[in-house]
């Protein structure tokens, strides 16, 4: 077979395949056409039936309208419930945040109170007060003042941010610190910073049953802290009461220790004399 003959044969085969596909496609089309015809007949028959009974149409329309109305009501109800659920969810989320904040505040107050009463050593009590003011309040410059009943004056005994000697003495009833201690009320100014060491932004009186023991004067907050919070005011109240109690307890303990040592020494002397 020559090359030309082969080409013709090959083209013939291709034409045959094409023809077969076209034939198959035509068959499919005819089948689909038949199905459509029967569907059309079905629809026409239903239309004829409905046209003969218009009341059926009305009943169907009424029924469908009723169903649509019910569905609309259900949808409105579902949307309302969804809105309520979202509102409740938002309310719970807000409550969660509030409780979380309250929890944090209580943890801070508990730890501060625990640490203040964890020791009877005066130095450690002072150290704890400083830790609370630095770490929990966030103060950068402050001083803890001791009140001397003899001359009714306040002298700085511990400080942070400045040398102890830089902090001025106060007299009870005079200046912000003296007046705050005399009144037994915390002073909290509007600013978060004061350069004048005679005028702190916060003065917390340390009193036990109206007996003045000292004060905490805050002059500057840490760089990252812009203002006082609700927790700070709670901490001021806690410090005012608990720090004062802790200071008094440590002083009484030191005094009783000293007295016990003196008495022991005295008894020792008496015993020695009795023996000799």
């Amino acid at each position: 077979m020559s090359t030309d003959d082969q080409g013709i044969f090959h083209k013939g085969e291709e034409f045959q395949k094409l023809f077969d596909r076209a034939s198959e496609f035509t068959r499919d089309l005819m089948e689909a056409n038949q199905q459509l015809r029967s569907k059309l007949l079905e629809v026409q028959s239903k239309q004829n039936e409905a046209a003969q009974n218009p009341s059926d149409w009305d009943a169907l329309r009424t029924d469908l309208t009723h169903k649509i109305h019910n569905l609309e009501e259900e949808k409105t109800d579902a949307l309302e419930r969804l809105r309520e659920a979202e509102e409740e969810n938002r309310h719970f989320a807000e409550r969660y945040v509030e409780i979380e904040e309250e929890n944090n505040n209580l943890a801070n107050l508990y730890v501060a109170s625990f640490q203040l009463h964890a020791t009877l050593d005066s130095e450690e009590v002072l150290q704890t007060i400083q830790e609370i003011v630095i770490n929990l309040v966030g103060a950068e410059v402050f001083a803890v003042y001791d009140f001397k009943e003899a001359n009714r004056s306040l002298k700085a005994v511990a400080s942070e941010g400045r040398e102890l000697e830089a902090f001025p003495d106060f007299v009870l009833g005079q200046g912000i610190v003296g007046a705050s201690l005399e009144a037994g009320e915390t002073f909290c100014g509007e600013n978060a910073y004061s350069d004048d060491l005679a005028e702190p932004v916060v003065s917390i009186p340390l009193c036990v049953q109206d007996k003045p023991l000292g004060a905490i004067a805050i002059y500057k907050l840490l760089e990252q802290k812009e203002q006082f919070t609700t927790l700070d005011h709670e901490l001021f109240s806690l410090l005012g009461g608990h720090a004062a109690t802790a200071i008094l307890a440590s002083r009484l303990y030191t005094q009783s220790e000293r007295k016990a040592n003196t008495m022991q020494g005295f008894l020792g002397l008496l015993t020695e004399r009795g023996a000799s």
Partner: protein
Amino acid sequence: MNYKVLIVDDSPTMRQLLAFSLKRIRGVSIVEAKDGMEGLKKVTTDTFDLALIDINMPVMDGLKLIHMIRTEENMDELPIVVITTEGADADKERALELGANEYLTKPVQGSEVLAVAKKFLVGL
């Protein structure tokens, strides 16, 4: 799942407060150290899942401790969170450069500590 967290801070108040917050995560146990040197000893003799480190501490400060931890073998994976009073950007950059993973400033909220700890421990 159990997690072991190291708290390095010279303030007993802060250590207690941080431990208080962290114990809200189930399975957390706390080890405390009062300065950088004690922290280094603990971190080299035990395995931790997270370390909370203060910067200003006696004996060895927090930055030195972070540097020492990161130069130790097999310690580059330990998440380190700095909790400090130092709020300047330069301090933060320095701590992060040395290998800290997170930087929080005091006064810190318990919820903040909890969120950061959960991020590193539980992956939340």
